[in-house]
C-alpha cells in the first residue's frame, strides 16, 4: 500500500488527475487527517465531475464525513451531501447520508422524507461506488425510515419496519440497534 509521500510524488506530474487526487485524499482520510483529505477530495470533485462522476460523488459524500468528524460544521456537512445528490440524483447513498444527518439532528420529518426518496433508488442496479461508505444497502435507509417514522407519529409503520429489519441479513451493529429499538417500543418479535 502506497504512502502519502509515494502517492503525492507519483501524482506530481498530473495533479489535476481526479483519480490521483482521490487516492491521496483516501490516504489522508485513513489517517484521520480530515482537513488534508478534504482538499484532495474537493479537487477530485472539481476536476472529475465530468470524467469521473462516481469519484466526484464519493468524494463529496466523504467530505461530509470529514467535516462531521471535525464537529460543529453542520451547514458544511449538509452542503457536501446536497452537492453529491445534485451531482447524481438517482443513487440512494446521498439520500441515506442526508436522512441520517437529519435523524441525528432530531429533524424527523426531513429524515423520514429523504429515507423514503432514497428507497426509490435502492433497488436500481447501479455501478458500485469506488470506496466504501456507510451505505451498506437498502436496509440502512429502512432503518432511518423506521427511526424517524416513530417520531412523526407513525408508530405502527415504525414497528413494522423494525420487525422487517430484524429478520434481514444486516450488519451486527444495525442488528443490535434494531433489537434495541424493538425492545424500547415494546414490540414482541
Amino acid at each position, binding site marked *: 500500500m502506497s504512502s502519502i509521500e509515494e502517492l503525492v*510524488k507519483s501524482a506530481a506530474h498530473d495533479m*489535476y488527475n481526479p483519480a490521483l487526487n482521490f487516492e491521496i485524499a483516501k490516504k489522508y482520510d485513513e489517517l484521520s487527517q480530515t482537513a*488534508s483529505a478534504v482538499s484532495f477530495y474537493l479537487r477530485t470533485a472539481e476536476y472529475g465531475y465530468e470524467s469521473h462522476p462516481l469519484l466526484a460523488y464519493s468524494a463529496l459524500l466523504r467530505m461530509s464525513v470529514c*467535516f462531521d468528524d471535525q464537529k460543529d460544521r453542520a451547514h458544511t456537512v449538509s452542503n457536501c451531501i446536497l452537492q453529491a445528490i445534485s451531482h447524481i440524483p438517482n443513487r440512494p447513498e446521498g439520500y441515506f447520508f442526508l436522512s441520517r444527518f437529519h435523524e441525528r439532528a432530531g429533524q424527523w420529518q426531513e429524515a423520514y422524507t429523504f429515507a423514503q426518496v432514497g428507497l426509490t433508488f435502492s433497488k436500481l442496479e447501479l455501478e458500485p461506488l469506488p470506496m466504501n461508505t456507510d451505505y451498506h444497502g437498502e436496509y440502512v435507509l429502512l432503518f432511518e425510515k423506521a427511526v424517524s417514522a416513530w417520531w412523526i407519529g407513525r408508530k405502527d409503520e415504525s414497528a413494522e419496519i423494525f420487525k422487517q429489519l430484524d429478520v434481514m441479513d444486516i450488519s451486527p451493529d444495525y442488528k443490535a440497534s434494531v433489537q434495541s429499538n424493538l425492545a424500547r417500543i415494546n414490540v414482541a418479535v
Partner: protein
Amino acid sequence: MNLVQRAVQYGGELAPLVISKGLTSGTGLMNPSIFIDNDGDILVNLRHVNYTLYHAENKQLFSSRWGPLSYLHPEKDLRLVTTNYLCRLDKNLKMTDYAKVDTSALDVPPIWEFVGEEDCRLVQWDNDYYLIGVRRDTTTNGEGRMELSKIEIDKANWNVKEVSRLRIPTPGDNSSYCEKNWVPILDKPYHFIKWCSPVEVVRAHPTEPKCDQVSFRQNLTPPSDQRGSSQLIRWGNMYISIHHEVILFKNYLGQKDGLYFHRLAVWDDQLNLVGLSPNKFTFLDGRVEFCVGIAEFQGDLLISFGFQDNAAFVLRTPRGVVEDMIMEALTYEFN
C-alpha cells in the same frame, strides 16, 4: 511544471508532515518553516489551525455555502486560532519528535478573531531560537505586527516553551495596519527584508520594541508585489529566498478568491535583489500554497510549504535544480 515534479524527476524527495489527529482534531496543518540548527538538527515549526480551508478550484461547481474560498471554523466559534508545533525530522525527513509550543506563560486573552502567532519562521540568532510571525489578537481591530517569540527547546524530553515575546514596531511612525511576512536573514541577527521593491532592510532589537531602517533602495522591479515567504539563507557566495505573490479577486457573486504563486529571489552580499524567477511557480499546482522556510542540507535545498492551508510538506530539491533556478532568476530582466 510544478516544483515538486521538477525536483522529483532529478532525484528529489517529498515528505508529508502529519501530527496525530488526537492533538489536532484533524483540522489544518500548514505552512511549515524548516530550519537546521547549530546542532545539525532539522527542525520544523508546523502551524496548526482550528479551521479547514475550503477552496474550490477549476470551475468551482462545488463551492461552500460561503463561496469558493472559505475558512471553515466551528460554526459556534468564529475565531481563527493558530497553535504551533515544533518538530524534529531525521535525515530522511521523517518526523521523529513533535511538541506543541507552550505559550501559556505569556498568553493574554485575545481581543480579535485571529488568535495566535501565525506563519512563524524559525531561526536561531545568538544561540537563541525564535519563532517570528505575525500576531493580530492584541487590538480590537486586528492590527498585525511581527513578533519575536523566543523559545527554549528541551531536546532530551522534547518540550518547547515560549520564554519571551516582543512585538516589533515598524520603523518610523508605526502606524501601518498589518505587518506580516518579514523575511528573517539567517546570518544577520534581527535583520529582515521588509519589502522587495524598493528593497527595505530593517533591524529589530532582541529585547526592546525597537526597529530601524538599515537600507532602502530600488533594485530590479518585480512584475508584482513579492511578499516574504521563506527565510533568507546563504547559498554559496549569494543569498537566496523564496517569495510569494497573491492575486486576490472576487467572483461574479462578490465572493472572495485568491491565487498564490512563488518565485526564487537571489541577493548579493549587500542585500541587493539581483535575480528573480522569471516565471512564477507552484509546488503541487494548488491555488493556495505557501512556503515559509528553506534550509540547505547536504548540498540540497529543503523547502517547506503548505498546500491549501490543509497539508504540509518538505521538498528536498536537488542542488542542480536549485542552481538552474538561480540561473533562471539571474536572467530576470531589470526594468
